[in-house]
């Protein structure tokens, strides 16, 4: 799995039957310092909660389809989680500078109607 930023949505009226009801988002893969790396890809949103601007992680290849309700869909990239925080471990070499704080720590910059609605669903 890798980190990515959601940068857009895809609407397709005509698509193969297996893709009906599948939410498609454009994502930009990131390196672990959250800098863009590689080309943008279209990923299915397996958690139905990701939106533009959000930091997510995605799984590629055959496993992407396993994340969907119907496991035999033609999907090769799927968003499987929204990142709250990337935490460097003491003893590791992760650079803390580029890591974002937990989402809850920055409500002012990330509050919006969709976000608030979704946060209400959090346990």
């Amino acid at each position: 799995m890798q980190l990515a930023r959601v940068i857009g949505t895809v609407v397709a009226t005509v698509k193969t039957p297996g893709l009906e009801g599948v939410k498609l988002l454009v994502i930009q893969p990131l390196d672990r310092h959250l800098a863009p790396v590689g080309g943008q890809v279209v990923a299915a949103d397996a958690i139905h909660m990701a939106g533009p601007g959000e930091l997510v992680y995605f799984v590629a290849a055959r496993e992407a389809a396993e994340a969907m309700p119907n496991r035999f869909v033609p999907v090769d990239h799927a968003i499987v989680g929204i990142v709250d925080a990337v935490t460097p471990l003491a003893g590791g070499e992760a650079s803390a500078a580029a890591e974002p704080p937990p989402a809850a720590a920055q409500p002012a910059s990330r509050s919006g109607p969709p976000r608030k609605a979704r946060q209400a669903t959090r346990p």
Partner: protein
Amino acid sequence: MKLARVVGTVVSTIKAPDFDGRTLLLCDLLDPSGAPSGGYTIAVDSVGAGAGETVLLLDEGTSARQVLSAPGAPIRTVVVGIVDAVTGEEAG
């Protein structure tokens, strides 16, 4: 399988149900000498690996799901071992 070093964790509240209760480790990929080879991956832990440890990554979905006893989970990369030493011509 691949060598990697654990450098962080990924915390996530909203995620696919198959990830509930699992630890996601941010791992830098290594070459055989132990130097970072540039890439990274997020892997599911199965051995209790900790910070800075060199680990063995399994990067194949069917085997990963078997290791985790999680059929149908959208998981491809799993930490399956903690490396004590790598020896050989290329290894440092």
